[in-house]
C-alpha cells in the first residue's frame, strides 16, 4: 500500500458525487442567492428552506466524518514511530473508532431527516488537510481547525434540533460533540508535546491552522452574528484547549473570510 494517498484516490461507491469546495464558494448563483432578502442566515426553523439547509449540512457532516475517519487512519499508516510516536498512533486509532461511529450516526440521522447518501455533493477539504507531510500539521489542520469547526457546526445543529423540536437531532449532535471536544483536545495536547523543543515547527503548524481556519470560515459560513449560519461555540472550544485569544482570532478570521467571500462572489458575478 502506498504512503500518502492523494484526495483524488479516496475510494467511494457509486452514490457519491465529488465537487471542489472553491467551486461551491465561487458558484455564480451564490450572488443571486445573497441578493434575496430572506432574513438572517442563522439556521432557524422559521427561515425559508431551513429543513433543506439542515439536510444539506447533515450530508456535509456525513462526508466530513468519512474523511475524518480516513485521515486519522492514514496518519497511523503514513508515518513511522520516529515521526508519529506510538501513543499518538493509539490516539489516532481511537479517533478512527469514534469517527466510524460518527459516520454511522450521520447515516441514521440523515435518514431520519429525510435525506439519502449522495443527495448532495462531497468536497474533500477535510481529507486534504489530512495530507500534510508533517503529522503536527495534520493535527493542527484537522484536529484543531476542522474538528474545531465541527464543534461549531454540531453545536449549531444541536441548538437547531432543540428550537425546531427534533429530539433525535439534538441527542445525536450532543453525543458527537462530546467526541469532537476530545479530538480537538487531542490535537492541542499533541501540538504541545511534539513541538515543545521546536518553536519553528510550532509556528509552521499554527500558520497552517490559521490558513485552514480562514478557508473554512467559508465566506461567512461561521461567525458570531445572525448573518452566520454556523456559530462559534466559545465554551466548548475552551474545553477543547483553545485559549480566549485563539478563539478571538478565529472570530476575526471568520469576519475577514466573510468579507472576502462576498467580494469573490461579486467579482464572479460581474465576470
Amino acid at each position: 500500500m502506498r504512503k500518502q494517498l492523494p484526495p483524488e484516490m479516496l475510494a467511494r461507491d457509486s452514490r457519491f458525487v465529488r465537487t471542489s469546495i472553491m467551486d461551491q464558494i465561487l458558484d455564480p448563483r451564490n450572488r443571486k442567492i445573497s441578493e434575496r432578502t430572506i432574513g438572517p442566515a442563522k439556521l432557524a426553523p422559521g427561515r425559508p428552506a431551513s429543513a433543506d439547509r439542515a439536510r444539506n449540512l447533515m450530508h456535509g457532516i456525513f462526508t466530513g466524518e468519512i474523511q475524518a475517519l480516513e485521515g486519522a487512519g492514514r496518519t497511523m499508516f503514513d508515518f513511522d514511530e520516529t515521526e508519529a510516536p506510538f501513543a499518538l498512533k493509539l490516539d489516532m486509532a481511537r479517533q478512527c473508532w469514534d469517527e466510524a461511529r460518527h459516520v454511522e450516526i450521520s447515516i441514521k440521522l440523515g435518514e431520519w431527516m429525510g435525506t439519502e447518501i449522495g443527495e448532495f455533493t462531497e468536497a474533500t477539504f477535510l481529507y486534504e488537510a489530512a495530507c500534510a507531510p508533517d503529522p503536527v500539521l495534520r493535527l493542527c489542520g484537522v484536529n484543531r481547525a476542522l474538528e474545531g469547526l465541527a464543534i461549531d457546526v454540531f453545536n449549531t445543529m444541536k441548538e437547531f434540533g432543540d428550537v425546531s423540536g427534533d429530539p433525535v437531532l439534538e441527542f445525536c449532535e450532543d453525543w458527537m460533540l462530546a467526541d469532537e471536544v476530545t479530538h480537538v483536545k487531542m490535537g492541542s495536547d499533541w501540538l504541545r508535546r511534539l513541538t515543545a523543543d521546536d518553536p519553528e515547527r510550532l509556528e509552521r503548524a499554527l500558520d497552517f491552522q490559521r490558513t485552514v481556519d480562514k478557508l473554512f470560515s467559508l465566506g461567512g459560513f461561521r461567525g458570531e452574528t445572525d448573518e452566520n449560519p454556523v456559530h462559534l461555540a466559545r465554551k466548548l472550544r475552551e474545553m477543547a484547549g483553545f485559549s480566549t485569544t485563539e478563539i478571538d482570532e478565529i472570530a476575526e478570521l471568520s469576519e475577514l473570510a466573510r468579507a472576502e467571500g462576498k467580494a469573490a462572489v461579486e467579482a464572479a458575478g460581474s465576470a
Partner: protein
Amino acid sequence: MSDPFKPRPAFAPWDRRELPGLFDVEESARRVGAYKWIEMRLFEALGGWIATVPELDVKMILGRHCYHHAWHAELFDKRLPELREMNTDRLCAPANDAMEAFVEALHEPDAPELTIEKLVGVFRVLMPRKIAAYTFHLNGTSRVTDAPTQRSLEFILQDEWNDWREGEMLLQSLIDTPEELERAIRRQHELEALVVRAGGITGPGTIGTTTEVEGAGV
C-alpha cells in the same frame, strides 16, 4: 457460626492453577514483544486501508477494528516492562525475516478493487494465526506467575473472536462469483505459504511445535 481462625487450604478445591508454566520470564517477554509488533502492523494497515475501500460498511468496520488492535498493542506494551523489558521497542520486533516478509505482503493491496484481498489477509490468514498463538500462550503459561498476561490475552481473544467472525461474514457477503472465490483462495494460499515459512507469529514453536522451519531466517 464457623470459626474464622480455623486453617483453610490456601487454594480452593476448584482452583486448578499450576506451577510452573511453559515459559520463563524471558520467553514470555519475547512472545509479548512479537504480539505487540504484529498488532501494530495490523492496526496501521487497517487504518491505511480505510481510505482505499469503496464499500461503506467495510470502511466503518475497519475503523472500529483498527482501534481494537491498537488497544491490544497498548496492553502488550504495558506488559513488557513488567517482564523486565524496560526498552519496549527492543522486543517489539518480527519473529524472523519470513514474518516480516509476510507482513509486507499483507500490506501490499492498495487499489479500491482489492477489498477481498485486503480482508482475506486479515481475517482468513492473520487473525486465525493470532488466535492460535494467543490461545497457546493462555493455555501454556503459568496461571499463577503470568496472570497479568493471561488476563490481557483473555480480553484480547474476546475481541479477536468477535472481529474475526465479523470479518469472515463481510468476506462471505463480498464473495459472489467463481472469480471472486478464486481470488480469495489464491490470496489465502499466497499468504499462508509465507506464514507457514515464518512458523507462526512468534516463529517456529508458536503453538508448541518445535520443528525448525527451513528458510525462516531465524
